């Protein structure tokens, strides 16, 4: 087998050195009762070409060449070529966690740059070297808030990504952490601040909101902060569309930012792998989960980077750790770092401006359901959700996400997303289909 670099004669030599006459003897010490005693019921190994063909066949079963208006936490943005060029380098792809700083300065330096850029982007003081994804960053932020405040309850907006809220519940339930939801305003699509005010108390560790929220709307972070801070809770601000930070004011009032970087040149890849981040204020640093890279010097006085503050982590603290997390998404975070470097200060703004323009063009033709200010996605009420999407599929267009699956009160609506990759012609087709369905059937040409 091409991945096993030993010839039979080399195996023979090694077995002899071990004082063993056959490979089976290496397992002789295993109790009989545990041994498999039969071959695995898996087909024999196949060639490289057959592997390529297998996945091509699967790809064909996915359909190809569709224009997509799906957002809802995962976005289709162009991936600059440099991203894959860089992450395909063996030194990045096949290296390990940088525990041995002397031979991992490549990884450590890029993580340090990553941490810096996330701080610049979010306006926070310190950022970690990434979490698994945005959805798991949320409960980590909630637990961080609980540790920092000594309080045990969490309030989360319904306009936070529904699957993120599900993950939060799974974690919170087992920490004995009550989670309560508060609503959104049916006119504006922004936070129902009265509902938040009503549900707020002195035992709340965190108020969790998202901006832009699941409906694509830039939400009322300042007002949420006022309510949270007024009762001694921390404000956790979540984002799923990182490109929005190219043009939207970062959440300065947040105590913790928990976000998803998939928009930064990370393939949608049917749900993962992605990279989440947690960024926070200096004073909560020691409660922060995940890896951190710090600047130092080597014994010759040269600037050098290393993993630091590891005493928060599982391999030292064990059951008192800030989290059980071991992996960070290093390679995925590197994709984001390359993306942020390629676009840079001007490019990210221009990219965000293009997204804004595309979505607002489409919104201008159909009427958004909510009046709140939106970035690159918005909600539209349509006559018949399933029919509309069926029609669009025939035109090789995947329509917006039907919201009924997450919000029963919005089952007459879809969430439409347009990015810099969305073509005007496709937006015209979608707008046309929505409008035609809205008008009575008597109107004919």
């Amino acid at each position, binding site marked *: 087998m091409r991945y096993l670099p030993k010839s039979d004669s080399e195996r023979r030599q090694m077995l002899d050195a071990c004082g063993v006459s056959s490979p089976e003897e290496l397992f002789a010490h295993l109790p009989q009762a545990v041994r498999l005693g039969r071959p695995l019921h898996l087909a024999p190994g196949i060639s490289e070409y057959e592997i390529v063909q297998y996945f091509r066949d699967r790809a064909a079963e996915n359909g190809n060449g569709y224009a997509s208006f799906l957002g809802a936490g995962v976005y289709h943005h162009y991936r600059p070529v440099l991203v894959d060029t860089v992450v395909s380098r063996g030194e990045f792809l096949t290296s390990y966690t940088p525990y041995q700083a002397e031979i991992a300065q490549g990884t450590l330096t890029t993580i340090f740059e990553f941490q810096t850029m996330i701080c610049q982007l979010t306006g926070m003081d310190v950022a970690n070297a990434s979490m698994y994804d945005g959805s798991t960053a949320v409960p980590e932020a909630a637990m961080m808030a609980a540790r920092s405040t000594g309080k045990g309850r969490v309030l989360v907006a319904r306009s936070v990504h529904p699957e993120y809220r599900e993950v939060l519940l799974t974690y919170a339930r087992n920490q004995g952490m009550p989670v309560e939801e508060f609503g959104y305003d049916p006119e504006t699509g922004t936070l129902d601040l009265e509902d938040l005010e009503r549900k707020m108390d002195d035992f709340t560790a965190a108020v969790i909101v998202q901006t832009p929220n699941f409906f694509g709307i830039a939400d009322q972070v300042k007002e949420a902060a006022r309510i949270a801070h007024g009762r001694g809770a921390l404000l956790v601000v979540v984002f799923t569309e990182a490109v929005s930070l190219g043009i939207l004011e970062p959440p300065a009032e947040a105590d913790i930012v928990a976000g998803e970087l998939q928009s930064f040149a990370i393939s949608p890849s049917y749900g993962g792998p992605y990279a989440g981040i947690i960024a926070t204020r200096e004073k909560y640093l*020691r409660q922060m989960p995940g890896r951190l890279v710090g600047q130092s010097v080597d014994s010759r006085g040269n600037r050098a980077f290393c993993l630091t503050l*590891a*005493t928060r982590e599982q391999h*030292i*603290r064990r059951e*008192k750790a800030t989290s059980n997390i071991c992996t960070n998404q290093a390679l995925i975070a590197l994709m984001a770092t390359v993306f942020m470097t390629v676009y840079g200060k001007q490019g990210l703004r221009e990219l965000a401006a293009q997204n804004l323009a595309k979505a607002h063009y489409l919104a201008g033709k159909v009427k958004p359901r909510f009046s709140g200010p939106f970035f690159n996605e918005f909600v539209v009420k349509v006559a018949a959700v399933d029919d509309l999407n069926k029609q669009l599929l025939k035109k090789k267009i995947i329509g917006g996400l039907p919201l009924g699956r997450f919000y029963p009160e919005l089952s007459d609506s879809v969430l439409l997303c347009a990015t810099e990759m969305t073509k005007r012609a496709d937006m015209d087709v979608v707008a046309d289909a929505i409008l035609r369905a809205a008008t009575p059937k008597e109107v004919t040409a």
Partner: protein
Amino acid sequence: MYPENFRYTKEHEWVAAVGDAGTIGITDHAQQELGDIVYVDLPKVGTHIEQGRSLGSVESVKAVSDVYSPVSGEVTEINQTLAEKPETLNSDPHGAAWLVKIKLSAPAELAGLMSAAEYEAYIGAEK
């Protein structure tokens, strides 16, 4: 090496008391075991501590050690210099790098702790 007027615990803390005014720290042996200290986590002034309970922790790069209070009482002062210069704990653990000052609630507890000679014998045996 180990001041005569201190009392010592098996977990390598020391306490020096005059009446009910006590000062608590960790021993030279402890700082040696931990290596270069990078961070010290201390309780708030006013905290009530029971003998044997953790009052904070001391961190090196590779390890964290809880500090267990040798006596019960109320924390009256914490050593602010350790936040800026945790390394003092390595150079002067019995003097400048005291951790907290405490008002003892049960001075009789001191009698159950080790003397300097007993502590030296104890760490000698540990090796």
